[in-house]
């Protein structure tokens, strides 16, 4: 099932513009599946901003950037291929802006991301249900935006492949979900013919280090509501620190730890309509902005199946 956070996390630029797509964004970072031949679709809006950032480990502001903000609108969809397999897709349009200094913001279509989400195992454990999910994701840039214009580029322009393992336990209306994600990132091509990391590179191709992320979600889940707290951690497996008073670079070591809350409401009177909102705050980081972000979305379920009823079940299915 979709939630706003999925969408926005997915694409919004976290901090120094790490498109959260890759890791925190977990397009599918919840333990909810669509029913067979149901299609959940809707627009999302995300806003993220920061005025403090970490230059390496040094926490600072930049009066020549002021507050850097990112806005994103996206259409996302989640289709139930069958009761155990979902296909999710999204593509955002992103705007960036800085409140001070002279650099102009950027805007454009960012990356297309898709996930396959498979409910691999589901069994009763104790008084609850334990579900295990396996996910595979991929993303590809949809326009030729420049990645080396951080923190105002709209993305990193890398192609990614992600693998995720997610385990959920629900007892009554209370649940906990834990997941780990590994993301492979292709090299990127920048407009500059030569660039510096910790040495000078005579090429316009940049090796992008892979990434790993972990998320924990705990909360209340019923047919009507999801109310949960979440904590995420993201690490770049390699990369280098921004040097003192230098600009960020796509292959920086971008790490962050954040906490947030997520609420989702399924309308009673209009079957299949839901509202979704999430807020997050970056607690710690490295080469990223200390972002506050908020994401909202509206989703509606279209049922293409004659046999099964429209399902927005927030509960993991039990067979």
């Amino acid at each position, binding site marked *: 099932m979709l939630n706003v956070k999925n969408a926005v996390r997915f694409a919004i630029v976290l901090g120094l513009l790490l498109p959260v797509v890759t890791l925190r964004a977990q397009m599918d970072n919840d333990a909810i599946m669509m029913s067979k031949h149901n299609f959940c679709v809707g627009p999302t809006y995300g806003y993220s901003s920061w005025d403090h950032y970490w230059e390496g480990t040094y926490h600072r502001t930049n009066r020549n950037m002021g507050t850097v903000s990112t806005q994103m609108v996206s259409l996302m969809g989640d289709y139930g291929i069958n009761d155990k397999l979902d296909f999710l897709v999204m593509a955002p349009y992103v705007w960036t802006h800085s409140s001070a200094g002279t650099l102009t913001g950027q805007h454009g279509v960012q990356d297309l991301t898709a996930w396959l989400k498979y409910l691999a195992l589901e069994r009763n454990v104790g008084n609850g249900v334990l579900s295990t999910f396996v*996910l*595979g994701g991929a993303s590809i840039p949809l326009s030729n935006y*420049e990645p080396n214009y951080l923190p105002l580029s709209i993305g990193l322009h890398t192609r990614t492949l992600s*693998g995720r393992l997610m385990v959920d336990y629900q007892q009554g209306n209370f649940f906990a979900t834990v997941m780990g994600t590994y993301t*492979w990132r*292709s*090299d990127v091509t920048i407009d*500059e*013919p030569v660039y510096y990391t910790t040495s000078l590179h005579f090429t316009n191709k940049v090796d992008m280090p892979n990434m790993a992320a972990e998320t924990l979600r705990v909360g209340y889940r019923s047919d009507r509501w999801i109310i949960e707290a979440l904590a995420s951690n993201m690490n770049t497996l390699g990369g280098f620190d921004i040097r003192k008073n230098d*600009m960020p670079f796509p292959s920086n070591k971008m790490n962050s730890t954040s906490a947030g809350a997520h609420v989702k409401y399924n309308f009673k009177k209009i079957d299949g309509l839901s509202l979704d909102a999430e807020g997050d705050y970056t607690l710690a980081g490295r080469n990223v902005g200390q972002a506050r972000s908020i994401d909202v979305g509206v989703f509606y379920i279209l049922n293409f199946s004659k046999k099964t009823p429209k399902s927005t079940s927030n509960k993991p299915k039990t067979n």
Partner: protein
Amino acid sequence: MQRYKYILLPIALIALAACSKTVTNVTDNLPALAPANQDVNAGSWKPVLLSRPDTFPVAAPAATTNAAYTADLNEIKAYQHNLSGDVKSQISYWSAGHVLRWNQIMMELVTKYNLPPYQNPDGSYPAPNAANPFAYPNFPFSNPPYAARAYAYVSAAQYDALVACWHYKTLYNRPRPYQVDSSIRALGGRTTLPSYPSEGAVLAGVTAELMQLLFPAEIANIQQKLSQEELALIASGQAARSDVTAGEALGRQVADVFLARGRADKAGAAGGTPANWTSFVTAAEAASQIPWLSLETPGRPPMLPLFGKVKGFLCDSAAIVSLRPGPPPSTSSADMTAAVAAAYSTVTHATRQQMAIVQFWADGAGTYTPPGHWNYIADADFIKQNYSEVRWARNLALLNMAEMDAAISCWDIKYFYFNPRPTQMDARIKTLTGIPNFPSYVSGHSMFSYAAAAILGHLVPSRATAYNSMAGEAANSRVYAGIHYVVDCTTGATVGQKVGDYAVQRAMSDGAE
């Protein structure tokens, strides 16, 4: 079975992705330099500062039958008997061309040190201090004028040192170790050029000596490069220990001549004083002009405002004054209003292609600077030209002396007119790259690029048209970016071309053509 299909697919895709990593430099796997023409008469070419090629005496080498030389050969054999992978890769790296590799190391040092200092808590800015280069802000801040001068000193000194080297090579005519002893392999390629003194070691000595002054905090790094190069020279059978020792000593002596000049060329005072900075404002106001203002927050003192007083290699101070163009449009004129409006319109309508041009030529903080970019362009073509080391050094010297003098002339003009940037005139003008912290008129990129295109077009005529079109693109990039008026670039192009012509004049009279 069905269920596994969905698990295996992503796993397979991920495995595929994991395989394809590692970006390589375009110059990583060059073949050994094998010049068609070794320019054996280069000992008679006109040096830049040396009055004669034999200003510094180099003693005659021991005969190849001498026991000391036999010991040299045994040292090579010992290395070749058990070559480590590291030494092999050093041989491969350096044999692509010693001038090329040192030039790339220079670009790396310039890039590493090209960062503006972070402000003090009170909003003032600390200045790098050559006497304490390890303290923050590290010395130097290798901004474009500093870099242009650094490239010029290193290239010109390398050229003079190689002229002297070639003089002694032909004088003594000592064969290469692999020519003396057939059991020694020529791992870095074969050449008919005499061995003594070693051209690679001359370059190591002259370059290391200069780099240590220009980038004093890098002394250990530079010493390591020198050691690796000399080991590669010996282990490859290119040079005997005695060739290397004599070469390095000659190189260091030549470097001292350039170091002495560098200490007296007024670059050390180019930062100016607060009184100097105020005087530019006063002069502009006296001429009823809006004076330039730093657009950084907090405001940063202007970059090397007295660099226009530095002593050039090609242009003397009278020539610098004569290169000065007429004034830009008055800041209160209708022409200026139109130029500001045009700048606003251009940057607000920039296409992705124009942005790519801006980024390609940006060469701002944290890069090798515009002169470095032109060195990179030159090297790429020189690789194809298969130049001898001495001609490579000469051509880079001509290029970099032109770039340094372009910087001097440009900085003279910038601070003579002290003209504001478009964004200062209209704060709505948001730019596609950082606004350099110095006055607008004339464009440094335009001057550097047209000066480079003029001398490179003379050196490699088949590429003259390409250089001119690159220079035009570099100049336009500053207009697309919103950081220059068109007139800054057209005027900069004209003056830059004139500076380049000084280098062409020298090229036609130094005996190498």
